[in-house]
């Protein structure tokens, strides 16, 4: 491992998180998930499987859904990140958050941040999704409580409520 010493060590990383510029000092191979939770204290992003299967750690990186457990910190340099903490406008919940509450789309809550961010990307691309669009958009996000129907209902309700 000696021959890597010249490249080892922490690096300074500038990124924008929920609209706010941040600088952190981290190892380049640190998982974005850990940077968010441990360095920035944004514990809304959850770790489920830690191997890209469950979607609990989903965040938006430059508007695109990613599993933050599979993103090495260095690759997030200069990106614009959105986590669950950035979804509400102050005390005002987003349409998706309100719909998840009303439809019973959250039970234990571990999958919920990822579900909401995956739904955000969907509604961003397709403001009026079909039932199949919703099922596909959330197919990488696993929920072990709800049986999914209330989650799908919530996304549909949010889409119908949005003006466009």
């Amino acid at each position, binding site marked *: *491992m000696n*021959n*890597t010493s010249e*490249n*080892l060590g922490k690096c300074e990383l500038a990124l924008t998180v929920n609209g706010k510029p941040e600088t952190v000092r*981290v*190892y*380049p*191979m*640190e*998982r974005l998930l850990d940077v968010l939770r441990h360095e920035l204290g944004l514990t809304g992003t959850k770790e489920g499987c*830690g*191997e*890209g*299967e469950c*979607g609990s750690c*989903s965040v938006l990186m430059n508007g*695109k*859904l*990613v*599993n933050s*457990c*599979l*993103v*090495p*910190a*260095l*690759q997030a*340099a200069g990106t614009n990140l959105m986590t669950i903490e950035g979804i509400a406008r102050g005390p005002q919940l987003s349409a998706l958050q309100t719909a998840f509450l009303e439809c019973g789309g959250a039970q234990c809550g571990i999958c919920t941040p990822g579900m909401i961010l*995956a739904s955000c*990307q969907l509604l961003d691309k397709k403001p009026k999704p079909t039932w199949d669009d919703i099922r*596909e*958009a959330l*197919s*990488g*996000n*696993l929920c072990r409580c709800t049986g999914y129907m209330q989650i799908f209902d919530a996304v549909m309700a949010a889409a119908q409520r949005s003006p466009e």
Partner: protein
Amino acid sequence: MRSDPADFALIAPGTLPAVVSLLADEPGQWLPIAGGTDVMVQYAAGKLPARKLVSIWNLSELQGIEISPDEIRIGAGCTYTELREHKLIAEEFPLLVSAARWTGGIANQNRGTLGGNIVNASPAADSLPALLAYEAELILVSVRGERRVPYLDFHTGYKKMQLAPDELIRWICIRRGFSEYLQCARKVGARDAQAIAKVCVAALGRLRGGVIEDVRIALGSVAPVPLRLTELEEMVKGKSIEPELVDLARKTTAAAIQPIDDIRSTARYRSAVTGNLVAEFLEQLRGSEKTA
């Protein structure tokens, strides 16, 4: 046990020339990482042999899809999402779009790349049978220049391939001209998203005058490498698709594959299902000739 990030180096030189000279200077020392959907999984499990990684994510030279009258060139860094959303690929190369749709979920499709899928070289990878069926060619790049290799010969054994330690895949090239072909892709798995295939097939073919003029059948998850059924293809070419031929195709398929028992399925199931999928494709091909 989970890896400690302090033990790993990761750098992002930012340009293709800088990356290939790094690979040339210390051959085999640096592991390229694109979207990380395979590498980071190994890393998380503490099973990544490499300690030095070089990021090729977002490298502009590996991006983009170029279209010429004869072929399309897909940048090795193209994500599954980019493949899915490309209009011409959807129209002309639906096998690739189906495969992209079945790979992981949306988050992994946003990060996983076609080049990464090739070099990860899983025999179960969804997109590789499609590349075999289209007879793709790869353009590999290193400080020594570029070379073009047929994808059919690229995988030489389980996780072994014709890629020198200082090379990267730059382009995946596919000849156009499949508009008159029937193209069929099927994945048999626990579910489409996230689940890895028990068996997957990508096939295309064309009838003329009631007989098979051209046919290509490629399979995933039934051998140490993604597999083309070349012997079967030669056997059925020039023939009309009768029940006897379909039966023979089933038997030839069973003899050509080397399925195994593993966590996802059994050799016996895979063998039976693969035969059925090949038979199903031939049945569909039988009815596909358009009357002039």
